[in-house]
Structure formats: C-alpha cells, structure tokens
C-alpha cells in the first residue's frame, strides 16, 4: 500500500517547465528524504504532492485510508513556517491544540487523549514550560519547535516536512532524526522530508529521492536522478 503515489508529474511555472516526469511513492513505515541543489523545486514537488499546486501533467494519489482503514491523516510543515505572522493572537498551547482539530475535533471538544497528545508533543520539543506564552513572543527557533509540536500533536499517518531543521543545532537535529526514525519504524508512519543535510540524515533514512537538473533542457528543469 502506498500512502503517496506520484506518477509522471510535470509542472510549469508559466511557460517554464520546472519539474519533468517525476514518479515516486512513499509507503507506511518508511522515512524518505528528498534532496537537490538550491532551487531544485523540492518545495514545488511537495506542494504538488499535497494538492497546493496543480501539475501540468501526471497523476498524484494520496491514499484515502491508513493501514487500519481509518481516514489518512497528513501533517505538513512548510518551509519558513516559523516566519508566520508575529502578531498571531494565540498562546503556544492553543496553537499546538489546533493540531488535534483535524482528528475529528473541528466541532467537538478535545478529550483526555487529545490533551495527552498535546502534552507529549510539547514535551518532545522541550516547549511544555512555554505553553502559556504568546507565539509572537517566541524566537525563530522556538516558533519552529512549536510548529513541529503541532504536527506531532496531530499524530498523522503521513508526515511531510520541508526543511524542518532550519535553525536547529546539531544535537537537536540528531534527536529530531531519531524521533522521525522511531515514528516510521516503530509506529508505521510514512515520512517525507526535504533536507540539505543529506550526509547527516542518511544513516536514519530508509530511502533517498534526489532531484537533478535535466542536462538536455534549455530551462532550469529538474527530474529524479536514476
């Protein structure tokens, strides 16, 4: 079973082809990294995969259900998520709790299990003591961590991260990779992570997708390395 299946995806910005004939899949229980040089349209590929951009050609299938036959839940951290509106009127706790809304809680009160997920997620990024702070008062690194906590609180089946370790020190990055590996291997989660830290993360990842520039194209167009 594939959680994500992308077949022959081609994407244009205006007239310019950016991605050509991309096919890949992500399965439950695997931790996959996506790499490529700066401007290799890694984020564009992710945004196409999630339906945030419309491809010119190709087929993208996100599984409707997880391995337990329940609706598939997706958690996404966009690039630069930590630069969100500094004036956003919310405490850290409210923001992380909002990660539970998509688990059937848009119109229902959060229960004990939801609160446990939130507490665990905040503790996993060492932000539990800051839970009553206003998000606008946090540093860039702290904002990054609460955005990660929001996704962990969702406890999704499929994690998609776009350079989530920006601004983290080496120790935090290592702990983060271990946490992802644990989620994939021990809890059957599927993880796709865009990263520039290939050398650092390869020992934790199960698979590596690499975007390279097409040599025969007059445009700055990328495809998967064979």
């Amino acid at each position, binding site marked *: 079973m594939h959680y994500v299946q992308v077949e022959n995806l081609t994407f244009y910005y205006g007239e310019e082809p950016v991605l050509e004939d991309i096919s890949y899949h992500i399965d439950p229980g695997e931790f996959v990294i996506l790499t490529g040089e700066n401007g290799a349209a890694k984020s564009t590929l992710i945004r196409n995969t999630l339906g945030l951009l419309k491809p010119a050609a190709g087929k993208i299938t996100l599984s409707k259900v997880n391995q337990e036959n329940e609706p598939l839940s997706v958690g996404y951290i966009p690039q630069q998520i930590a630069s*969100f509106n500094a004036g956003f009127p919310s405490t850290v706790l409210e923001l992380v709790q909002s990660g539970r809304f*998509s688990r059937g809680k848009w119109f229902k009160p959060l229960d004990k299990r939801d609160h446990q997920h939130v507490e665990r997620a905040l503790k996993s990024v060492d932000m539990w003591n800051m839970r009553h702070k206003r998000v606008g008062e946090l540093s860039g690194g702290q904002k990054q961590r609460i955005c990660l906590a929001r996704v962990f609180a969702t406890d999704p089946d499929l994690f998609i991260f776009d350079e989530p370790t920006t601004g983290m020190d080496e120790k935090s990055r290592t702990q983060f990779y271990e946490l992802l590996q644990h989620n994939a291997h021990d809890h059957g989660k599927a993880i796709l992570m865009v990263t520039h830290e290939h050398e650092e993360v390869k020992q934790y990842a199960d698979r590596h997708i690499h975007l390279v520039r097409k040599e025969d194209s007059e445009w700055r167009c990328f495809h998967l390395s064979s």
Partner: protein
Amino acid sequence: MEMFSFEFMRKAWLAAGFMAVIAPMLGVFLVVRRQSLLADTLSHVSLAGIALGFFLNQNPTMTTLLVVIISAVVLEYLRTMYQSYSEVSTAILMSGGLAVALLLMSLTKDNAPMKINQYLFGSIITISQSQVKVLGVLFVIIILLFLLFKRPMYVLTFDEDTAHVDGLPVHRMSLLFNIITGVAITLMIPIAGALLVSAIMILPATIAMNLGKSFNRVIFSSIVIGLIGMLSGLVFSYQLNTPPGATITLVFIAILALVSLGQKIRHK
C-alpha cells in the same frame, strides 16, 4: 440618564450594542489575516451599490447587498491571482467602487448626492425599528457562525497551506468570510456610515490584540472594547452634540493611544 427617555436613543443604544459585538468579531480575523483594508474596500464598493439603488430606483440596501457579494467573490479571485501582493486587489476594487458610485450619481436625477451623503456618514440616531431588528438577526447569525466555525477559522488564519492539508476548504471559507463581512458592512453602513464602518471593525480588534495573549481572550477583549467605545462614544456624542460615527471613532483612537502608552510604560 435623560438620554434614555428618548425612543431614538434607546434604539441607538441597542443598535450600537449589536454592532459593538459584530464588528470586532469580524475585525479580529480581518486584522490577523492582514485584510484590514477589506472592510474599507467593501464599504467603498457599497457606495456603488447604494448609487445603483438610487439610479434604478430600487431599495439601496438590496442593490448594495448584491454589489458587495459580487465584489467579495471578485476580491477572493483577485487575492488568489495576486498572491505576492494581495493589497493590489483591494486597491483595484476600492478605486473601481468609488468610480462606479460617482458615475451612477452623476447619471441619477432626484438629488442622489444628498441621499448618498446619508450613507457616507451614517446616522445612528435616525435608525428605524426594522433596521434594529435586522441588526439583531445579523448579531445572532454571526455569533452562531463564530461558535460553529471558530476552530476552522483559527487554523485558516494561522496558515492557509496548513488549513488545506488539515482538510479545510480554504477558498470556500475565505469566500464565505468575505461575503459575511460584506453583508455585515452593508447592514451597518446606514447607521455607522461608509467612511467609519471599517474603523469600528478594525480599531477594537487592534486594541484587543495589544491586550490579550490567547485567541479567545483577544476575541472577548475586542467585544468588551467595542462595547465601551461604541456606548461611551454615543454618550459623548449626545452630550457634546457631535456626529456619533466620528465621535465613536475618536473614542476608539483615544483608547488605542492609551493602551499603547500603558504598554510602553509597563515595558520600560
């Protein structure tokens, strides 16, 4: 308390109370979504609707509703088209709305500019019983929508991409929000005036954002500040014999200045 002996003042207080809750509730979302100018834009566009009503000799509220709803749809389309500089969409509609209003006014006989003046500045003290009732209905609808959609709106306001991945219909929600804001503006304009309606939406929200830490507290504070500003503005207007809309706006600006000053002193 002499002022309450007058029927028109009792109606004005009731209308002000309704608007003091409706306007800041929408205002908080407008401010956080960086759409503060949306209220201004829709109030300018509503002038075109009012002028259309006079031009066609129809009820101006109905034509305004129609024009504002169409504009809200166009605005959402332009906002997605010009994502990197979304303020362009408000500028296009604001100038377009005013241009259409002026054009239709010049084509309308029967003293249209005088009638438009009434909508430009509003008049809370000449409010009719049916207008109070309509505001009451709007008040109930907006409270219900808020209670129902508070969580989806919170996530949408935080980040639209996150909202999409969380399964929310981002464009439909944005569109619906614009339409509701447009309807609220249309119904508040005859009372508050096109020039001041955005002030009563944006100022209490801005003040509340300086005061509250949590989302719930910011919403609650904005309503309390809305009530304080609207009702004290009405009292000042009555006592000093000044225009109500302008007085209310100046009271809000004074509260904003006091809150900002208080925060500066506290952080020293």
